[in-house]
């Protein structure tokens, strides 16, 4: 049976309908969990007051305003942005490495961040410092993440084979982890506890200035990533095909590694290494849409990442309240079975 314009239009229209419904559904999910994250918490705040605060009016209780404005709202937005950033980062790397089990931290970003955080947290004791502010920690994490990114970028355009790049990233990560372990062995238990908690990731204590930095970085990098959607699609067929379709493979490698690592780095700086979002969400988006076309997958991953990360943070806060779980605990508990399900179902690859 030959193909004609009419059947093609029908096929494309049907597909487009699926794309828009999925994107709409994800958007609704993002809004829903964002609101729940603001409304729910260890302190019960009347719904009316909550909305008053959100829309800039004063609540019946001064404390309510403060809880919502200074604690819940920035945290909810942090989780939302962080999830979106990690999902896009994971998506880019999965396509780039043509490997479905790759995530944002595969190139050692989290290990690099962990190492510098360990250095600050555990080393400060030796240096005679007693208290370490969260801003210092963020800065340390960012420096560590960017250091590893620098190493990976330096080799990115030189290695012939992208799998070599993957191995270099992994190995850099191992070295950084080993260095962290070294520091842990010599550290005070109190600081070790703080370090371990940090490595499990958390959106608690997110401040407005952090939200602002994260938002700007995310928006710029995500917009940039969208510009790569087309060459990224060509990359699905492999580097050689991409090259034959006019993609400048070297420059493209550089950009992909830069954008995905930078996204992972800023999130890690403020929230620590949040596991699984970047690995699971791209698969979730791919299966929901039924396509590997990155022009729709990127927006879907942004929305899906925001939605699922918001949900996970909500669960981390509420499940055993007032005890708060590390966010990686909830993301892994939900993410791991999800990934297994997707891969066993056999539909999704990259």
């Amino acid at each position, binding site marked *: 049976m030959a193909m004609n314009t009419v059947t093609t239009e029908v096929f494309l229209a049907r597909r487009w309908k699926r794309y828009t419904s999925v994107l709409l559904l994800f958007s609704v999910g993002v809004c829903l969990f964002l609101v729940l994250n603001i409304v729910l918490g260890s302190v019960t705040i009347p719904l009316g007051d909550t909305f008053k605060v959100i829309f800039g009016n004063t609540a019946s209780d001064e404390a309510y305003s403060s809880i919502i404005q200074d604690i819940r709202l920035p945290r909810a937005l942090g989780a939302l942005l962080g999830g979106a950033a990690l999902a896009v980062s994971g998506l880019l790397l999965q396509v780039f490495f043509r490997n479905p089990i790759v995530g944002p931290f595969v190139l050692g970003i989290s290990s690099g961040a962990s190492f510098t955080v360990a250095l600050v947290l555990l080393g400060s004791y030796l240096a005679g410092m007693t208290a370490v502010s969260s801003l210092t920690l963020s800065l340390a994490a960012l420096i560590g993440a960017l250091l590893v990114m620098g190493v990976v970028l330096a080799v990115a355009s030189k290695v012939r084979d992208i799998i070599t790049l993957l191995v270099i990233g992994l190995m850099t990560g191992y070295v950084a982890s080993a260095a962290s372990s070294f520091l842990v062995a010599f550290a005070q238990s109190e600081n070790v506890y703080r370090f371990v908690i940090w490595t499990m990731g958390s959106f608690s204590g997110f401040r407005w200035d952090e939200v602002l930095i994260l938002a700007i970085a995310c928006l710029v990098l995500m917009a940039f990533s969208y510009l790569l959607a087309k060459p990224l699609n060509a990359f699905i067929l492999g580097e050689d095909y991409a090259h034959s*379709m006019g993609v400048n493979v070297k420059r493209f490698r550089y950009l992909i590694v830069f954008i995905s690592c930078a996204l992972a780095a800023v999130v890690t700086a403020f929230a620590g290494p949040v596991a699984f979002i970047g690995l699971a969400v791209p698969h979730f988006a791919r299966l929901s849409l039924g396509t590997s076309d990155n022009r729709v997958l990127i927006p879907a991953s942004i929305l899906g990442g925001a939605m699922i990360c918001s949900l996970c943070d909500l669960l981390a806060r509420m499940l055993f309240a007032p005890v708060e779980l590390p966010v990686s605990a909830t993301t892994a508990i939900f993410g791991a079975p999800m990934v297994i399900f997707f891969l066993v179902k056999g539909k999704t690859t990259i």
Partner: protein
Amino acid sequence: MILRTDKLTVGYGKRSVVSDINVMLMKGQFVCLLGPNGSGKSTILKTIVRMLSPLGGEVYLNDRKVVQMSNQEMAKTTAVVLTEPVSAGLLTAYDIVMLGRQPHSGLISKATIKDREIVIDSLNMVNAGNVAQRYFSELSDGEKQKTLLARALAQEPQLIVLDEPTSHLDAKHRIEVMLILRQLTREKGVTVIASLHDIDLAVKACDVAILIKDGYVLACGMPEDVLQEEMVTQLYGMGNANFNRHLGGIELKSKQTGAGIFVVAGAGTGSSVYRILIKHGYTITTGILPENDIDYQIAESVEAATIKSQAYENMSHDSYLTALKLLGSSRQVIDAGFPVGATNQPNIELLKNALKSNKLVHSLRNREQSERLFGTSSNKFLYSHDFFELISAVKKAEQT
């Protein structure tokens, strides 16, 4: 002239694989690269499309050095189909073909109506319109290859470079792909260069054959001129087989030692008998075969000891006597059931002689016909209804 190479040397790093390549490809030509595994066919193709840098010399595309062309320019003139299997996640065949439009569109621009039409035409051209809406990963190897071919077409190239486009395919799809490629060259004036393993298909479909062997271009020209028996044997270094240009195929050689089995054949009745005997390791002698007999062609290719007679002539007494001598020294005789006419009576005499001297003579002929030809002595034949019975009987006789 689309493509020209000038003293091109290709290879990896410092190790050159093929040197001094000087070829010209004209518009609308179907060119194949033939050569043994590892001879450098893929290396040449990869160098032409700039996946590898030349170690020496130049590649010119439309009289421009390819090393000076931008990726975009290159992609607009040249498309590739690679041999490595492709995994395409959740992309449909339509999506894959649409990727071919990338060199012609902007970074974020949507597919235009023209793009869609080209994609549809490309898919239809390779008879893959029916799989357009299916996921690429769920297609058969043949459908996948056709889709990748359509993707190359959607690039609207002047030159398509294919690395072993038929290697994973079944007979039907191999032929289909070759016919599509030929159609492209004829109807769209696209130049096609492909590395191939099937000499038989190459001879029948290509305009130019380039033979690569031991680091050099062994020969280059029309396949009918270039692919002579000795050339092909030399090209692949085949010790145990021969290429037959008339049949366009390869025949395995017969064993050359020891007393053999004498096959009396003709008009194609012998071909299967020879192949079966060779498969089971027997030495074959055969005759008398006129030079214009298909059995003669095959007997020559399998290098059986063959007694021949001249085309369109009666079989000579000399050849009869030679055949009789060879028959005398053979252990078993097979009557392949050849048709009998005015010019091959000596073959009937040969069989009668064999029966008289109490040799074991198998026959694939039916009894009625045999009685008519041989009278009462037809009872002495050991009849086989099919090749299975024949080879079983031959083996049994050999053991006792």
